[in-house]
């Protein structure tokens, strides 16, 4: 065995330990290097590929960093208005009740401008899956304060840190929707370590499989880093996330169906 593998060695089938799912297109991801979005995009597509439901799945990504998700996900995709993905998904699922429908939304989208659509889709128990990427900041527009920004955390619209007296408190929307009778499965995951990725993937799979049961909405929050917005290296941002985001947004299942 050589000390280092050449490209030629790496592409030999016997050395293959991972391949990109065919449900991701060859378009280079527009997410910043080090950001959790890329991993989360991949997990959703892997799950749909493994379930063999490409032809039955419709994805909805509204405004935010994920607005261009349709360039990466090789399924029929809808780009929705800011915050309105749960309303769009409601209709898609109601006119196509046997299809798999998911939204892929960020925190500004889902928990600020789209709070109403989020809560009401959850409360109606729409049989859809919401994948919610929470990085505590508006990434796409350049690092403004989000509803989930931590107390004292800096953002371009709270350059001296979020003062909760003036700007309010972080919104734990995932705990909030878990209270609603319409949600069936609510969980919080991360994608910053291989172990976390494996757990997150399982959660996403469960959340999409649940649609077959027609028992309500499945909601997967993924706490993620935004190394650009937080102005840190990817490694530092993941460390900061563990130390600061996880205490406010604890990992694990929040609402698990009693009968599966």
């Amino acid at each position, binding site marked *: 065995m050589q000390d280092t593998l050449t490209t030629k060695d790496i592409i030999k089938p016997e050395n293959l330990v991972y391949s990109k799912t065919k449900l991701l297109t060859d378009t280079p991801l527009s997410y910043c290097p080090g950001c959790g979005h890329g991993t989360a995009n991949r997990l959703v597509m892997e799950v749909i590929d493994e379930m063999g439901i490409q032809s039955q799945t419709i994805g*909805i990504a509204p405004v935010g960093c994920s607005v261009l998700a349709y360039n990466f996900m090789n399924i029929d995709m809808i*780009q929705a208005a800011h915050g309105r993905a749960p309303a769009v998904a409601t209709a898609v699922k*109601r*006119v196509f009740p046997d299809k798999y429908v998911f939204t892929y939304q960020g925190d500004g989208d889902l928990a600020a401008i789209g709070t109403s659509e989020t809560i009401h889709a959850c409360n109606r128990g729409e049989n859809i899956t919401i994948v919610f990427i929470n990085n505590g900041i508006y990434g796409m527009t350049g690092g403004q304060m989000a509803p989930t920004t931590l107390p004292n955390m800096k953002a371009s619209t709270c350059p001296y840190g979020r003062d909760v007296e003036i700007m309010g408190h972080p919104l734990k929307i995932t705990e909030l929707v878990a209270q609603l009778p319409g949600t069936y499965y609510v969980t919080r995951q991360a994608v910053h370590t291989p172990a976390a990725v494996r757990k997150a993937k399982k959660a996403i799979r469960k959340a999409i499989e649940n649609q077959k049961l027609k028992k309500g909405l499945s909601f997967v929050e993924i706490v993620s880093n935004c190394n650009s917005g937080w102005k840190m290296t990817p490694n530092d941002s993941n460390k900061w996330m563990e130390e600061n985001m996880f205490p406010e947004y604890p990992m694990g299942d929040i609402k698990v169906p009693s009968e599966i």
Partner: protein
Amino acid sequence: MKELKLMKGNEAFAEGTIRAGADAYFGYPITPQSEVLEYLMTVRPYETTGMVVLQAESEIAAINMVYGGACCGKRVLTSSSSPGISLKQEGISYLAGAELPCVILNVVRGGPGLGTIQPSQSDYFQSVKGGGHGDYKCIVLAPSSVQEMYDFPKLGFELAFKYRNPVLILSDGIIGQMMEKVYLDESTPRWTEEEIIKNNSDWATTGKTSDRERNIITSLILEAAIQEKHVIKLYEKYKVIEDNEIRYEKFQCDDAEYLFVAYGSSARVCQKSVQLLREKGIKAGLLRPITLSPYPKKAIKDLSKQVKSIVVVEMSMGQMVEDVMLSVECKIPVNHFGRTGGVIPSPNEVADFMMKKIKGE
């Protein structure tokens, strides 16, 4: 055999959607159009045709539900009244930008602001000149009877799918609330899943199958040059619509020397005014645009060569009158008579106004 019924305009519209083979209606209560959702929830088409009926949490959610349903190549619609339609404008802009077919009913009430719940026509500009942001147009149909409230969902879907464009039905509190005779025709069945795929799978999100590329519905085009191309393409489409879809009705125009131009319920008022004037020996006529966008410019221009002057009657401070003026190109006098804020003009005051103008007052 057509079925004869006495119905409110709003109810006739609701029945019309079911019989037009609609797949889904998403609404939110607001006076004076709440009967649409009430009727649908009473009749329960989801148990017969399978049409989805859902009360959304807001007008904003409702129009985005329409967006979702339209993305799937289904026949979907919503209805509201003026303040609610203002809330829907972002969604309508998205629908137009993404070239999605749908039908939107506006039962107009007086404004601005919360205004009044009484009938008005003050949303003309909002309807025909854009309304939401960006360069786009809706096809706008103006019903002036309960029968047309019933007929226009079907016509609306035909036009919406023919051109992949939102169709706005611009009604008002009179047409929505009044009852008249309606002839109900045979139902058009809803499209089957196979028909949806056959008709619309070249663009709609019906699920990516191995025999086609994935379908993406978006109105996002980040590059200016490509966005410009897209808008130019939309405007080429609007030109085709203008060439093919203008609709209007003439009433006693053959020998007319004086012309009213009015749409919707104002056109009904003007019909009576024409009768009153003709009883006095004045040869008055009426042109009623049925499509407000595209606008029957040529028909008005042609009539302007025959008549001596025009009175435009609207329940507004004067919105459509601008399009009439553009149509006649300053060749003859164009006057405006308007009542606003929910006040309905009477046939007599409209006739009196025309008389004054004829006498040169």
